[in-house]
């Protein structure tokens, strides 16, 4: 694999541009949209991205230049094509198209979920993992099988991070909710039963979030936060374990912003230990949304001829990971691994 790719991430609140080659991240510049109060407002997030797009792109080009990589060395431009907030996606896509045209290089439309998986495979020893991807908007269990990343289980309503945020907002905690909930949970003394909703391989968090909010009436913040975490994490770990059993794979990769939670990591670690599977967590900068992962999957796709014309580069707010033809993994990958 060869090449240098500039990628731009901007599906939600983090606008981030990075330049990578097959060896490492050469440069990365990010600017986060921070709402003054409450959660992410899609229009304001998109306005933020529009305002700072040239700042992150110029910044990343400058940083790369200092390391001896010029704009003329860039082989392709990649961008997060979805899933995400429509207005944010369109803003980032516009910036990417302009760059591709002005540098006269191909454009690559990247699926945001798969970028999380691939950056994990790049930056940890995982080769063929079951991935638990838990973020604000997304909660999925993914694994590669016969030319596609299959979704083995996913949320039927909101993402786990979003469930935490909703609860945090009603409880008067700030945004994002996850880190504060984790903090309160450490000083809890009781578990309060909350709805545990696993349907086959799928998950549902919205009822759980509502029940946690209602439980605040008669219980301490500490106990509710603790019970919310214990219930929600047990659900995602269960589905991850089922996917391991079903696929026969022996690696688990954690991805997404909620993966920063230490209790979730501990639970996954226990489950993997008991099944004899290896558990991998990338370093923090590659867990949440970042430009490097978009640039890296962009490189894999560029290298396997998976590029798009500007005319066909529409964004897709509901872009499913199992819609992507995985051109960058050799077709005999599974046979080779089994033999």
């Amino acid at each position, binding site marked *: 694999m060869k090449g240098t790719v500039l990628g731009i991430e901007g599906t939600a609140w983090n606008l981030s541009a990075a330049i990578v080659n097959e060896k490492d991240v050469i440069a990365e510049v990010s600017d986060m949209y921070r709402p003054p109060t409450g959660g992410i407002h899609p229009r304001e997030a998109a306005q933020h991205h529009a305002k700072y797009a040239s700042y992150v792109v110029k910044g990343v080009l400058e940083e790369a230049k200092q390391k001896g990589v010029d704009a003329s060395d860039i082989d392709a431009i990649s961008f997060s094509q979805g899933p995400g907030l429509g207005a944010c996606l369109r803003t980032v896509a516009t910036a990417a198209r302009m760059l591709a045209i002005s540098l006269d290089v191909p454009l690559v439309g990247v699926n945001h979920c798969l970028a999380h998986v691939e950056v994990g495979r790049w930056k940890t020893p995982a080769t063929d993992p079951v991935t638990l991807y838990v973020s604000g908007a997304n909660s999925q269990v993914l694994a590669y099988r016969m030319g*596609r990343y299959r979704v083995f289980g996913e949320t039927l309503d909101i993402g786990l991070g979003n469930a935490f945020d909703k609860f945090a907002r009603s409880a008067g905690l700030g945004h994002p909710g996850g880190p504060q909930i984790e903090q309160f949970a450490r000083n809890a003394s009781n*578990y309060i039963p909350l709805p*545990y909703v696993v349907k*086959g*391989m799928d998950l549902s968090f919205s009822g759980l979030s509502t029940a946690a909010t209602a439980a605040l009436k008669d219980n301490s913040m500490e106990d509710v936060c603790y019970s919310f975490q214990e219930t929600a994490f*047990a659900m995602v770990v269960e589905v991850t374990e089922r996917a391991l059993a079903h696929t026969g794979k022996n690696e688990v990769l954690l991805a997404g912003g909620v993966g920063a939670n230490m209790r979730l990591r501990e639970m*996954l670690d226990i*489950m993997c230990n008991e099944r004899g599977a290896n558990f991998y967590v990338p370093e923090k900068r590659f867990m949440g949304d970042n430009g490097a992962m978009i640039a890296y999957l962009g490189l894999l796709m560029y290298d396997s001829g998976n590029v798009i014309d500007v005319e066909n580069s529409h964004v897709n707010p509901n872009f499913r990971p*199992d819609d992507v033809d995985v051109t960058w993994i050799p077709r005999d990958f599974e046979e080779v691994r089994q033999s």
Partner: protein
Amino acid sequence: MNLTNGAEAVVRVEDGVLIKERVPKSYRLKELDERIRKERTKAEARLISEARRAGVPTPIIYDIENSTIKMQYIDGIALKHVIDDDLSEQIGILVAELHAAGIIHGDLTTSNLILSNDKIYMIDFGLSFFESSVEARGVDVHVLFRTFESTHRDHERLIAAFCRGYRKEFAQADEVLERVKEIEKRGRYA
């Protein structure tokens, strides 16, 4: 004799009685773990009995205790070894009866269908639930078709035979079978 070791339960047979035990998960809080295993065990036993009431042969439940079910061991041969058009049509009838009763099996494979004394038994209701949506029924049938495709050479004929049986017994069959095609295109539930 240990039959299967899934992610959730261990199954053994003692004196013709099948004992299915949901094993504790130490990653889960003990209190939560016990609650889930108990609830699911109860639900599974209930679904097995409800299915039989709807006309689907299933094992007889002898006893439920915490997270363990004791039930009749169906001594027979898994359909995956003997399936033909005729049996596939009979499966279609059984699944239609199950769905009409508002039950989704959740793991319909030719290994979970046992031929015993010329009767087809449905086993392993560990992932079953009550639901009457077209989507849930479609996924149920889709999972079965996938096992036809991955293990049987004549899968197209088997699928056609299944559909004959399913349509015979179930007024909403066409809607469900139409959804199956759509689910297939999504490439999920692999």
